[in-house]
Each structure stands twice: as C-alpha cells, then as structure tokens.
C-alpha cells in the first residue's frame, strides 16, 4: 500500500487526516479512491493538484504508476513566471 500525504490545505477536506495508506496503482486510481473515501476532497483533485511519487513531482499525470511501497504527496500545482 502506498503511503499518501496531503500537503497544505487539503486535509481540510478529510476531516483533518493528512496521512493514510491507500492501494492505488496509478495517480488516477489514487484520485478515484481518495474521492470515494473523502467526497469533499474529490472536486479539489480535478485541477490544480501536483502529485509527488517518491519525491518526483508530477502534474496532470493520471497514468503515472504508483509503486506498492511508494510515498505519495499531494500538493498544490506549481506554476512559474
């Protein structure tokens, strides 16, 4: 199971829970399972979220694989100037 960490304000949509274990093989699955578990979080996963899998940040990458023992962080999407 991957270790999932919510960064920043996202835990406001999970009743304050910021870390949990989840079974997900891809980012998309992760989002789906998160939305099932925390319906309030769902809309916030649609846009503006970056996913760091074992340290590497991915943006808009539904198909990115998540390893069984991966550490996954959900953080605000990053832009630039």
């Amino acid at each position: 199971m991957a270790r999932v960490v919510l960064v920043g304000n996202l835990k406001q949509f999970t009743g304050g829970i910021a870390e949990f274990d989840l079974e997900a093989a891809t980012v998309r699955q992760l989002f789906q399972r998160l939305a099932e578990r925390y319906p309030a979080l769902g809309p916030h996963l649609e846009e503006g979220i970056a996913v760091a899998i074992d340290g590497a940040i991915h943006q808009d990458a539904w198909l990115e694989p998540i390893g069984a023992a991966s550490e996954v962080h959900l953080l605000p999407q990053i832009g630039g100037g």
Partner: protein
Amino acid sequence: MAEATTAPAKRKLKWVGKRAPRPDGVDKVTGRAKFGADLFMSGQLVGKVLRSTLPHARIKSIDISKALALPGVKAIVTRDDFQDMASEFVPAGEMMINYKDVVRNIMAREKVLYEGHPVAAVAATNAAVARQALKLIKVEYEVLPHVIDVDEAMKPGAPLLHEDMITQGVEPAPTKPSNVAKRVQFAVGDIEAGFKKADVIVEREYHTQPVHQGYIEPHACIASVSEDGQADLWVTTQGHYVVRAHCARLLGWDISKLRVTASEIGGGFGGKTVVYLEPVALALAKKAQRPVKMVMTREEVFRASGPAPGAWVKVKIGATKDGRITAAEATMAYQAGAFQGSPVQMGCMCAFAPYDLENVKTVGFDVVTNRPKVAAYRAPGAPISEYAVECALDELADQLKIDPLDLRLKNAAKEGTRAVYGPKFGPIGMVETLEAAKNHAHYTAKLGPNQGRGVASGFWFNIGGETCASINVNEDGTVSLIIGTPDIGGSRASHAQMTAESLGIDLSKVRTIIADTSMLGYTFLTGGSRATFAGGMAANQAAGDVIKQLCSRAAKIWEIPEDAVAYEDGFVKPAGANAGKFPALSIADIAKKAGKTGGPIVGHAQINAQGAGPSLGTHIVDVEVDKETGRVSVLRYTVIQDAGKAVHPSYVEGQFQGGAVQGIGWALSEEYIYGADGRMQNAGFLDYRMPVASDVPMIDTVIVEVPNPRHPYGVRGIGETPIVPPMAAIANAIGHALGTRLYELPMSPPKVLKAIGQNEAKGQGRGH
C-alpha cells in the same frame, strides 16, 4: 535500434553545452525581428481602452452614444459585450485563475476595482480618433472607499472589494466577508517543541512593495475576425496556446476558430502569461469586421498589468549553539491586487525549501486590494518569502558567530532531504552552490570602509508541462524543428542544439521555428523555467521518432529487417549479421528517397513533461553605503547556481545576470508608489526606477551542474531562481556595512539614511 531518449547523455556531447549561434540572432540585431506591435494588416483599426481613474467605484452607467457617433469610430465594447462567467478555477500561467474574475479584469462589470481597470474600448480609424472617442464615453460612478495597503485591507471594517468573499482555508468558515481570499498552511513536525530546543531565536518582520516585471515591450496584439467567425490573433505572449484558451473561453468561441501566432516577445518574466488586450481586440475586430491593433502605453502597462505582490512576512527561526536549526516558522500576507490569486502558496512552499528542517510551519494569506491584479514574476511568490528567511538566517549567523555560508551548509537540503512541502528531493545542488561560494575568490576579497558583503541562497521548483514538437526531415536532409514555446531569450538555440545532438547532425542543419496554435497540439507557455527543459525533452523524443523512421526506411532500402540496422551520428548503418554489408546512409540519402519509401519523414512528440528538477543558487554581493546620503552602490556581484546542464552556457549566464539585476532593482529602487487618492504616482520608467547600465557592475557567474536524472540532457530549468537571492543578499550586505539592518524593501536612500540616523542615535554603529 538506437534509443534517442537515453543514449545522448551517455556519449560525449557535441552541441549541448556549446555557445552556439542563435537562429533568431541576426534578425534581432538588424531590426528585422517582428515583435507584438510590428505587424500591420490592411484595413487595420487602432484600439484604445478607456480606463478607470478611480481605485474603487460602482459603475452606475456607461453611455457610448456620443463616441459611437464620432466619424471614424468603428466599434466600441463594454461589459455588455462579454458574457458573465461562473466561478471556476482553472490552472493558468502562474496558478489558479477564476474566469469569473478574468472576465471582470479584462472589462469592469459591476465595479471598477483599481485605477487603470478597463471600462470600455474603442476601435477607430486612427489613434487620434480613438483617443477622442474615449473622451466622449460617459461613465457614471458611485465612488467607494478604497484600500491599497495589505495591512489595512486585512483589518475589520476595511472597504470590501468583493462583498461575497469568504476566506477559504479557515475552519469553521467565517460568516462575514473580508478581503482575505484564502489562508494556506504548510507544516511539518512540531515547531513548539523545536523552538524549545533552540539556544537562539531570531524573530523579525519584513515588508516588501509591489514590483513590475518591467519588460521593455508593452503588451500588444492585432486581431482579425472574418465574417464566418474564423479569427487570427498576433500577440506578444509567453504562451499563445494559453491565450487561445482564455480568449476562446471568454468569447464563447470554438478553439479551432482561433489561430494565435506568437510574435517575437520583448520580455515577459511571467507578466505575459495572462490576457488583457487580447479578448478585447478580438471582440472589437468581430464587431468592426476589420483588423484591430492594440498596444498598451507604458503607463497602461504599469497601471493595469500585473506586478508582483507587495507583502509582509514574519519569520521566526530557532537554532542550537552549533547552528543546527531546530524550528522555523513564517507567516505572510501577499497582495493579490483586485482579484484573488497571489502566489502566496508558493511563497509558503519555498520559504524554507533550501533547508533540511524537522519542524517548520508556514502560513499565508491571499489578500485583495485596490491595485491591479498581480501576475507571475519570475519564481512567483518565492523571492518575497525567501528574502525574509534569508535575512533572518543572516542575523542568526551573526548571533551565533557562525559564517553565514557555514550556517547554510549545516542545514542545507540534499538528495533525500524531505522538502518542507512534503516530498523528498532527488539530486539537488544546494550544497554544491554553497561550497562553490565559499571557494570563490569573491567571498574572501578585502572590503573597504563603508562596504559590506552579503550572501543568500534561493530555491525554485521548475516545472514541465504539456509540450509538442515536430521535426520535419526536409528533402535535402536538413531538419526543421517546430516547437510551441515562444522564444523569450534563446530557447530556439537550445532546442536546436539538443535536436542536433539527438540526431547526431550538424547544428547548422537544424532550424527552429515557433509554431502558431494551428501547427502543433497544445503547448503550455514559456514560464516556470520549462522551455528548455520540456522543449528539449519533446525535441529529443521527436528526434527518436525521426531516427526510428530513418532506420525503417534504410532497412526497406536494403531489404533487411528493421532491427538489423543501427543509427549513429546522422547515419543509418547495417548492424548485426549485416554489418558492413551496405554503405551507411546519411539522413540526406534517406530523405532524398523518402517519397519512394513511404512519404515524408516527420517525427512528432506530444508529451506532458514530468521530472523537472529544482534549481538552487547562492549569491554573493558587495555594497558600499554612502553614509551621508543613504545611497547604496553594488560593487561586486557573483551568482552561483545549479543549472543541471547548461545547454547554452551564454544564455544560462544571461539568465543568472538578468535575474540578479532585476533583484538589485527590487532590493534598492523599484516600488509602486500610491497616493492617498489610490492612484499610482510613478507609472513610468522615470520614477519606477529599474537599474540602468551605470547602476550595476559586471555580474560574475558560476554554473554548477548537478544533472537532473530525469532529463535526457540533465537540464533543470534556470530562469527563475536567479531573482530569489538578491534582495536578501543585498540587505545582508547593507547590514554588514552599517552594523544595522533594514527590514523593508526597497532599501532606498531615504530609508537607509533614516536607519543610519537611528543607529547613530543609539550609538550602536559597528560597521566592518
């Protein structure tokens, strides 16, 4: 078969890392290059915008009848010409934007929210008529109280910009509206416990003023809409696909109807990632059925296009006697301007990012004020929070009597360090830049009287994103690289270099062309330091596609299996059992026969580039303070930064130098000055003081290369980090020159002189 995506980094590089000629260079030294305002269309009209002179007022009515009657006026648009949009946040250049706000920013609806806010726009046969027409538009306002300052805007009872704005991110949700759009928080560990372990704690508050990106080319575009609704837009922008998306959305058009061509762009630095004139020009052109050209004046650029926010930041850092940081906390409020969306979130994430910290907490507030909506400016958000942190660290080093670079080294983030925003870093170059700084001759050079030296580090994430590239192999074997990121400072050269490298051909055989939006798929803008990173990745992948096709064609020509050939340095050779059986075929040989072997050879890549690597930098600066006038002169400046891999070292150095000098301006002389009437007083280059050539010394550079393992050439992206350290480095240098510190930007002569006076009054001067 050769795999271009992995092979190049392993072999000796021929083009990547060279100071190659830039494809657009000659056009730009001869005046031939066409920028935003340089295109003319037959029958074109001139578009001008009527802007609010009030900082905050309700629009009671707009009467355009007299203006419309003026001979030569062909169209006028107001709020009635743009459909209202529901609240919907979408990712844009810098961060999330809300179309409900965008439609109000391009043309005021219920209220004007800042001086310079567009109220109407006119298209006329010439500029004089257009200007005259603007004077004939009558707008009736109900004047409302305004608020310019972020502290004032946060107070209870402050004039409200948006009566329905409830602060997000606060639990329970507030019941009353305010100017605070959002509260964000990032926390790791336990800061209370951390501060308890500290021997020394530094706690300070810092203030910064808004600064403009200061691109020399004002916003400009020319729009043409035909009777059947097909539209063309020529515009100076960092991202023409983004412009297309916004315009199509705001106007309710199909994306396919609108073709956007990026002109040469005269600087952007993040400021040309949003739309201002573009949807207005298209609306006018549609109404007038003639092309409409719109160019902002410099004054309009200052009053109505996005600066970076002003802010306040409180920093608290605790450390043990030996310099290990035990806890760090920062609270910050950033001005968003008239609509929410300041880069405070990124300010919070970057504040302590260069360091390996157990206990850290950052809190940010996004605050609306009656100023133009902020836009991205180089590492948006980071320079402000990192300025505050890097200044506080310097005071900590002073108090601990530890060399400021050693203090940073002791706490530096490395590969495997958990970033304060969560994930663990891959390979990063913080330690390497600090060590390079320590070993640089600059760091130990002698200082004279009234001189001081300062150092500071900086961090920026860098990004990838959606990127397309096509490589057309021409009939003679030369190649055209088509790419969708506007070239703002030499990216055509770096893309050509990586393409030549990947294909193993001579650089002179590659020409890079920037596509218009109809030629390639969606490509995100040039920003976030992504153009060379992501474009290089896409070009490399497209080259791999070309190589695959070349191999296939050669195999067909030789009538051997495709896997029995190999590609090397621009030639396909028979391999394995067939090795040496046929003479190698060059790209030109294969291209010549392309028609006979299946048609033209074109390689494509359409990717969402992932794996951008953060770039860290450390700056060293020497200043001299004229203690009688408070004037600060920058005597010597060195930028040290991790580039991953410098594809074109000259342009990497140029990014380092340009960022440093923008930072010098931010530190010493640039600021928005508002009067009590809520109007900007210095909307021109005379009094908005950007550094001129005689203000600055040569900027020395050291390129550190800690390759990004996720890029075929090790590229990180380097454009934004250079603006992060200068403000703190200079503040620290002034602090050391005076023996007293300033906590406010810009450190202009009146402020410096005042600090000197206060310090002398206290009898604490100890300049060294």
